């Protein structure tokens, strides 16, 4: 008997994991470049450090597991994880946040579970949350935008001391919009008042405000998301569900008590709503596969993010929300399997009761 050949099909959609990852990076590129300009050299240094650390940790883990390093690195997932992690860090955070984050994301969250495709939780978000809980001060020290080549912007050399020397100039710190509202609320100042003298909504849209790389420019993030939708890398289900999940309870609560609850637009353009909706919650590995499952998952992320922002101790809750929903993904998957052709939902064969003439 001769050797058995390859099984059909002999045709392919010609897509690939690497292509999907590259397209996601391409979608993130405009927002990332804009933020490089906005926050200058320290942001670029931190970004480079984080991505390099993720790739390095991935290579190390693959080596330990006895896997082919080059082949697995080429899927681009480690770079993307590093990229997303960098986008959720304070832009002027010291270099070691990127390295510690990379270890948490790649070694603990991804490779310990068996590598790409096997992890239960979103690696970048685990890293962000781990850093936030372990180093709350560093992780909540934000700077006001100081665009490259502007008067206040740190030069290349000064930037090196900011990222690698930990010399953050005190005068530069600022609060994120969500953080500001939360702080003011604890001081007894109503949301209406605190948002009134805050960044204008148009500035939030374009990103001229404090925050992480991924939090600021809402417009460019949405454009990137639209690109992914057009390229069919993601479907509309999770982003729409996340946005509705945030906006709907915000609108309701705001209508009831505007002094206590911020409005839907504020929630929409603050924090990581769009980054979360288009880039974080849509992570293939940690989100459900079926369309109804995606809707449930997305709505859960949005709702939990709003709940955490509104009631919990942390100003931003998207990372926590995504992780909580990640934990539910297997069970959502199990209960939202599609109906099998010719079978009822319970798996029993259909009974035909149409009329045959």
């Amino acid at each position, binding site marked *: 008997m001769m050797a058995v050949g390859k099984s059909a099909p002999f045709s392919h959609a010609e897509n690939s994991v690497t292509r999907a990852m590259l397209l996601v990076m391409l979608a993130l590129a405009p927002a990332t470049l804009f933020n490089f300009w906005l926050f200058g050299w320290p942001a670029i240094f931190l970004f480079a450090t984080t991505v390099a650390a993720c790739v390095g940790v991935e290579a190390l883990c693959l080596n330990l*597991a006895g*896997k082919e390093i080059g082949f697995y690195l080429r899927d681009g997932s480690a770079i993307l994880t590093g990229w997303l992690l960098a986008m959720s860090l304070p832009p002027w955070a010291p270099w070691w946040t990127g390295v510690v984050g990379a270890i948490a994301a790649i070694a603990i969250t991804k490779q310990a579970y068996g590598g790409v495709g096997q992890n239960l939780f979103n690696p970048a978000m685990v890293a962000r949350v781990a850093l936030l809980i372990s180093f709350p001060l560093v992780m909540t020290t934000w700077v006001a935008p100081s665009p490259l080549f502007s008067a206040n912007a740190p030069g290349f050399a000064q930037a090196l001391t900011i990222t690698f020397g930990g010399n953050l100039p005190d005068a530069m710190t600022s609060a994120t919009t969500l953080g500001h509202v939360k702080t003011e609320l604890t001081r007894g100042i109503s949301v209406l008042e605190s948002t009134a003298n805050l960044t204008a909504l148009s500035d939030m849209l374009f990103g001229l405000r404090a925050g992480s790389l991924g939090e600021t420019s809402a417009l460019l993030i949405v454009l990137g998301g639209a690109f992914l939708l057009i390229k069919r890398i993601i479907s509309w289900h999770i982003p729409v569900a996340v946005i509705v999940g945030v906006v709907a309870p915000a609108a309701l609560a705001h209508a009831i008590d505007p002094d206590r609850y911020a409005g839907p637009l504020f929630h929409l353009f603050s924090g990581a709503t769009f980054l979360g909706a288009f880039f974080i919650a849509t992570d293939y590995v940690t989100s459900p596969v079926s369309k109804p499952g995606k809707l449930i998952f997305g709505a859960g992320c949005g709702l939990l993010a709003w709940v955490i922002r509104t009631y919990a101790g942390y100003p931003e809750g998207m990372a926590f929300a995504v992780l909580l929903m990640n934990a539910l993904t297997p069970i959502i998957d199990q209960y939202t399997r599609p109906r099998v052709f010719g079978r009822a939902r319970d798996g029993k064969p259909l009974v035909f009761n149409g009329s045959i003439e």
Partner: protein
Amino acid sequence: MLTAVMILAGMGLLMGGLLGFASQRLAVEENPVEVEIQAMLPGSQCGQCGYVGCGQAAAALARGEATVTLCPPGGKALAEALAKKLGIEADLSDHEEKGPEYAFIRADLCYGCTRCIPECNVDAIIGATKQMHDVIAELCHGCAKCVEVCPTVAIEMRPVPTTVTSWHWPKPEPLAAAH
């Protein structure tokens, strides 16, 4: 503090009580596994396992005195099913899968002694005195008892051949993990 302690103690008591109640009420009288195992075995009483019949083999398995790989006709599939039923981990990786076999009578050696015919407990051997015997391959379950009684060593066990209709795709190679 006191409330917490009391709540915890109360919960402990309640759950302990529930567990105790469950163990009393839902207790299984006897081990039904033996019956289930017997239903899983081929039931051809071929005796290749060393026990008299499938019933005795099932009892030995249920008592844990026999290994799950005892039944050659059942093969690896049965061994796996038995291991699952008995809730034990069986390392079948080096268990050599012989594959199903059937008895084949060589025409040049058989002289029609009929000694094999009563040995076959599914009556798969046809033939008469001083006439060449033949095996109905579809009925033969590969117990090989006929092989032992043949005075001229005319019966041999042959693997059931794979045909175009019985062939199926092999399991895809696992993703190469090593270099």
